[in-house]
């Protein structure tokens, strides 16, 4: 029961009792109560004319530097300014409505204050949120009279969007060898002579070849003919990142999700490939087919990170297996990087992709190691983990047999180091094979 209703009821009862018993004294008792209610009514706020403005900025930035994007775990300062464009308000209670998942780590999202005509009330607090897209929409304002008896509520629009992007682990380089490259210079050996640094071959001297490229030893062997050293052209390539967002493969435990590790790995890989100058596309496979079309550079990096910020797992029946991977989304013979914990059913699809001419690199967060840490320390769990480990080892071995490169990543280890260790062997083999060819 509200205070106002309670008081109204009391006044009514006393008036009725007074009239019913013809006792004037009871009516006298009503007078202070009535005066109290009337004063509250006279001091009640009239039409609220409030205007709200919200800005977001990184915790370590200046006041004027607003932002819409932050990396995971970085605090964001929310500043909400409410200006009274109407008459003076004796008590205003402002409560900012936070998007779900956001935690206030400093300050408070509520304030009460008197607000004079033309005055501005500023609410400032610091929040931190998990990866995701957050929409700060409204602030709830309640203006009351001094006694708090008559209230006026209003929801003020103060919209601001915040993208909490996945954290990126700096990866030095990821060696890839796609069959097809683009015309622009990049880090991938293209298998054609041109301006590069790796020795490619020797051809007969053409007029205009620089003198320092002449192979003097060849000339000595062949008498009067001149030969020129050729170097291998290095080009950029198309890289397609496929993030496996199927619910059934992304294990959760103790508030952690394997998917979060996959997302961070995808962000880190996108970062390294874009830094190397490649054209990168992203496909988030699970909830639906969420695509980020191929592109280069910093803008593409932002696009991919934003797409990853909003990525979530899905349990769609359609996308239960990799059968519906849209290969046409990626250029033929390009490099595909699949970030997935993998299931045995994925094997045939990956082999098919390899057969279609795609170069495949699978970065696989280890679900067995991830899940084992949440299991009880008993014999049954140990046996289950052992079986799981054997199944996984066999699966990865089969993938490698089909020339699919695999990075088996126990997520408690640094991705950069695991990639370096896993792909160093492949790098050496490739060099040897190229030397033989």
């Amino acid at each position, binding site marked *: 029961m509200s*205070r*106002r209703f*309670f008081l*109204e009821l*009391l*006044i*009514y009862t*006393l*008036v*009725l*009792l007074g*009239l019913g*018993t*013809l*006792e004037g*004294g*009871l*009516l*006298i*008792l009503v*007078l*202070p*109560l009535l*005066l*109290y*209610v009337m*004063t509250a*009514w006279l*001091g*009640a706020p009239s039409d609220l004319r409030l205007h709200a403005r919200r800005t977001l900025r990184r915790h370590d930035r200046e006041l004027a530097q607003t932002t819409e994007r932050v990396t995971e775990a970085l605090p964001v300062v929310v500043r909400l300014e409410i200006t009274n464009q109407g008459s003076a308000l*004796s*008590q205003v*209670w402002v409560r900012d409505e936070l998007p779900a998942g956001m935690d206030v780590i400093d*300050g*408070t999202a*509520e*304030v*009460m*204050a*008197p607000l004079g005509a033309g005055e501005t*009330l500023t609410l400032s607090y610091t929040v931190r949120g998990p990866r995701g897209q957050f929409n700060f929409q409204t602030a709830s304002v309640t203006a009351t009279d*001094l*006694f*708090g*008896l*008559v*209230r*006026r509520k209003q929801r003020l629009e103060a919209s601001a969007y915040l993208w909490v992007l996945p954290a990126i682990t700096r990866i030095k380089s990821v060696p890839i060898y796609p069959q097809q490259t683009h015309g622009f210079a990049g880090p991938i050996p293209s298998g054609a002579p041109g301006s590069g640094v790796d020795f490619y071959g020797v051809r007969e001297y053409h007029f205009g070849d620089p003198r320092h490229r002449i192979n003097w030893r060849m000339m000595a062997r062949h008498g009067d003919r001149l030969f020129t050293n050729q170097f291998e052209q290095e080009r950029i390539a198309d890289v397609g990142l496929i993030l496996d967002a199927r619910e059934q493969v992304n294990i959760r435990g103790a508030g952690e999700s394997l998917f979060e590790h996959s997302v961070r790995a995808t962000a880190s890989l996108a970062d390294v490939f874009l830094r190397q100058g490649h054209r990168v596309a992203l496909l988030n496979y699970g909830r639906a087919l969420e695509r980020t079309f191929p592109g280069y550079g910093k803008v593409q990096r932002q696009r991919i990170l934003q797409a990853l910020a909003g990525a979530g797992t899905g349990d769609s029946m359609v996308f239960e297996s990799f059968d519906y991977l849209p290969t046409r989304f990626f250029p033929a013979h390009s490099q595909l990087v699949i970030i997935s914990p993998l299931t045995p059913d994925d094997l045939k699809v990956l082999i098919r992709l390899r057969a279609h001419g795609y170069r495949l690199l699978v970065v696989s967060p280890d679900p067995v190691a991830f899940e084992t840490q949440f299991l009880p320390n008993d014999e049954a769990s140990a046996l289950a983990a052992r079986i799981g480990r054997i199944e996984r080892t066999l699966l990865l071995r089969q993938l490698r047999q089909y020339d699919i490169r695999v990075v088996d990543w126990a997520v408690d280890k640094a991705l950069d180091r695991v990639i370096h260790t896993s792909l160093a062997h492949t790098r050496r083999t490739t060099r040897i094979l190229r030397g033989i060819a």
Partner: protein
Amino acid sequence: MTRWVFGVCLGFSVIALGAGYGLTYDGRWSALWLLLGVLWWLGRRRWRWVGSLAFLGYIGAAAGGVFIGLGEVWMLLGTVAALAAWDLDHFAHRLQEIPRIEQQEALVASHLQRLALVSGGGLLLGIGARLVQVRFSLGAAVLLGLLAILGLQQFLAMLRRESD
């Protein structure tokens, strides 16, 4: 500050009602109002409803006192003090609930000022109404009564509309 003034108002209410009952009727009732005051004081932090219950008790006590012919001024004083205590109890709760209050001292000061004015005004109005006595015929009294009820109803309906 608010708590201190609340204590004073509660004390006034207990004293006024206790004096009204104790001086001319039965001292045991005074003890009861004192007990109610103690209950309000002790329970106000844990149970919010205690304030409204005790306020209702005090208004009931004042109405009962008027009905059985005890000193009207004591009863009026008790009502005004109980009203002020009830208001301050709620105000203190509100101040505690909201984590950040700007210009709190000014807010408290203006609240107390307004409450003092209303309490004083209510008391004076009550005393003034007690002094003014007008005789009506039964018909006129019934008519005035009906008008008063209708007016009150309209006024409260308007209040409700305004605050929705």
